């Protein structure tokens, strides 16, 4: 007999509906799965057979053929175990065929007949809803993730036998209900812990407000890492749409905690400098998201920037420019979002003390050149704000007075972002760093004094056209933070301090 049901897998960051067809016929007994299954799906054969047997169901030996449609797409999800089992049971006549058009199944089976949670539930649930399938059967532990999609009946299962009892009417399953998972996250890191470093804090505030990338340069132990770690705490809170995007990515990467719903915190990723290219932008024969995608809508922090492999830094160019990364493989091309703020930190030279007023630098000019040369011009060009982080002086360090907290900085950042969203929403942009030259001309009004100052800076510092645009973008963010409609000479003067000093790149 023939039976059909629905399962799902993921490709890129989207779920894909898979039609699972099963045919049971007489003939020499055997079990065949066709439709480009990869190793994990091929092995489903043994799991499904044993799980059905251990659920107390005796299947007579028959020729079983499973087809996974669309047949030209490679399937790699162990979540196809359950739909395969359901299709077989339906084909054998153990389950009624009524459910096959109205339900989707996902879950990995254990030999015992238990269900194990799988990755990528949220994108599957979104797809399920988009295809007008309103019942979704999934392993217990995954239900909160699926419940983020409204109007979907979610049935969490612990055992394969549950589904048989449900459809034969013996023991109906209950629909999962949304739990309030609004995390009471205790933030251990706060900007009030950072003593001194007012200029650096101000720069990070501007970076957070305008979505600018930032490079911090300073001697060892001055607090670069400490500052960067706290930047995620001053970014505006995630909107629901953004939170869904982040949750989707983490769901596919398998980083979502069990029983966890929506991710409400902006991601902060700080990969080690030994990271490979594929680890950075994503990869694999079926591409998985890399660090740039995992820091989508959040912060990517690269500590000790020159220590990263040269090619690893160069692959950052496309995601920084386009805010998405396309990974092409033989079977398909996948696009992952990668809209992040890059925070990089580095020492000015290999020994770390160049420009320090207490230590003398022991590096030769050639060594310094070689060190800073590791960061290419095009990459530096995409970093709007460059700052020096000087050593903290004694009076600031022992100062008992708490400095401004992250929460109050975030308020200003959110206000400035709001202004930017109002201005740029018609272009589907939301922060100043995303503006191109044409938009700069349209939106950025400069006072005559500011115009004069820009002209002087442009000539004195021999700025390039791109650096000029960058200067205006940062000035605009500073103006937004100051709640000013126009960019004044004060704003430009502050922005010009953030120009690059590395490699004389201006």
């Amino acid at each position: 007999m023939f039976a059909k049901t629905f399962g799902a897998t993921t490709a890129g960051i989207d779920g894909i509906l898979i039609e699972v067809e099963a045919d049971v016929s007489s003939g020499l007994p055997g079990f065949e799965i066709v439709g480009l299954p990869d190793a994990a799906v091929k092995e489903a054969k043994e799991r499904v057979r044993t799980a059905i047997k251990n659920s107390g169901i005796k299947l007579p030996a028959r020729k079983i053929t499973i087809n996974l449609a669309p047949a030209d797409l490679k399937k790699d999800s162990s979540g196809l175990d359950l739909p395969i089992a359901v299709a077989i049971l339906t084909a054998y006549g153990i389950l009624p065929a009524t459910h096959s058009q109205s339900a989707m199944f996902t879950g990995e089976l254990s030999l015992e007949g238990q269900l194990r949670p799988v990755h990528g539930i949220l994108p599957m649930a979104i797809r399920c809803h988009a295809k007008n399938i309103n019942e979704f059967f999934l392993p217990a532990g995954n239900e909160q993730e699926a419940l983020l999609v409204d109007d979907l009946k979610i049935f969490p299962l612990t055992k394969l036998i549950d589904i048989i009892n449900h459809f034969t009417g013996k023991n109906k399953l209950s629909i999962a209900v949304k739990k309030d998972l609004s995390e009471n996250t205790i933030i251990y890191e706060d900007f009030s812990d950072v003593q001194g470093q007012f200029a650096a804090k101000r720069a990070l505030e501007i970076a957070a407000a305008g979505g600018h990338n930032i490079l911090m340069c300073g001697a060892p132990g001055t607090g670069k890492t400490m500052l960067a770690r706290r930047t995620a705490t001053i970014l505006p809170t995630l909107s629901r749409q953004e939170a869904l995007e982040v949750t989707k990515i983490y769901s596919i990467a398998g980083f979502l905690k069990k029983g966890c719903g929506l991710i409400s915190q902006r991601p902060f990723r700080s990969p080690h400098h030994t990271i490979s290219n594929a680890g950075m932008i994503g990869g694999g024969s079926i591409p998985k998201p890399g660090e740039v995608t995992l820091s989508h809508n959040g912060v990517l922090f690269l500590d000790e920037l020159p220590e990263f492999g040269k090619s690893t830094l160069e692959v950052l160019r496309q995601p920084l420019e386009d805010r998405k990364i396309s990974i092409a493989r033989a079977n398909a091309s996948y696009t992952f979002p990668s809209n992040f703020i890059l925070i990089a930190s580095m020492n000015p030279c290999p020994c770390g003390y160049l420009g320090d007023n207490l230590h003398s630098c022991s590096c030769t000019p050639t060594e310094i050149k070689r060190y800073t040369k590791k960061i290419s011009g095009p990459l530096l060009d995409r970093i709007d704000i460059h700052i020096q982080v000087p050593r903290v002086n004694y009076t600031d360090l022992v100062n008992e007075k708490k400095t401004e907290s992250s929460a109050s900085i975030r308020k200003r950042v959110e206000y400035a972002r709001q202004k930017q969203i109002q201005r740029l929403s018609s272009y589907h942009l939301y922060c100043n760093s995303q503006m191109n030259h044409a938009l700069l001309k349209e939106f950025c009004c400069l006072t005559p004094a500011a115009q004069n100052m820009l002209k002087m800076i442009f000539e004195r510092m021999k700025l390039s056209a791109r650096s000029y645009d960058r200067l205006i973008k940062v000035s605009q963010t500073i103006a937004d933070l100051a709640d000013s409609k126009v960019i004044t000479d004060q704003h430009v003067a502050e922005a010009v301090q953030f120009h690059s000093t590395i490699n004389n790149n201006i």
Partner: protein
Amino acid sequence: MNNKEKGFLGEKYACQYLQQKHYTILAVNFSCRQGEIDIIAKKDNLIAFIEVKTRKNDKFGTASQAVNYLKQKKIIHTARIYISQHPAAVNYRFDIIEIYYSSSDNYKLQHIKGAFEI
């Protein structure tokens, strides 16, 4: 008793056992170029291709373990030949009967239904 005699004895016991269980023996030692099937038996709507393995003990592995991949392929091939010669709308199954023999009144028989598939 040599191995060949032991084998025949085992097949005899297996046939007796199958008849007790209301199987009809369709063929014994069906052979062709591709190989041989010890017993082909029918019950209701099912034809079973049965490989009989007789051993004295399981010191060198169980009897059913001796039906390895190559032997299975041989049996499957032979079964295909049998089906093409005797077409019928029935289901098929590959069984193994293992017999541990010590004397004519002291032997143990085990019937493994659906022991392998294509």
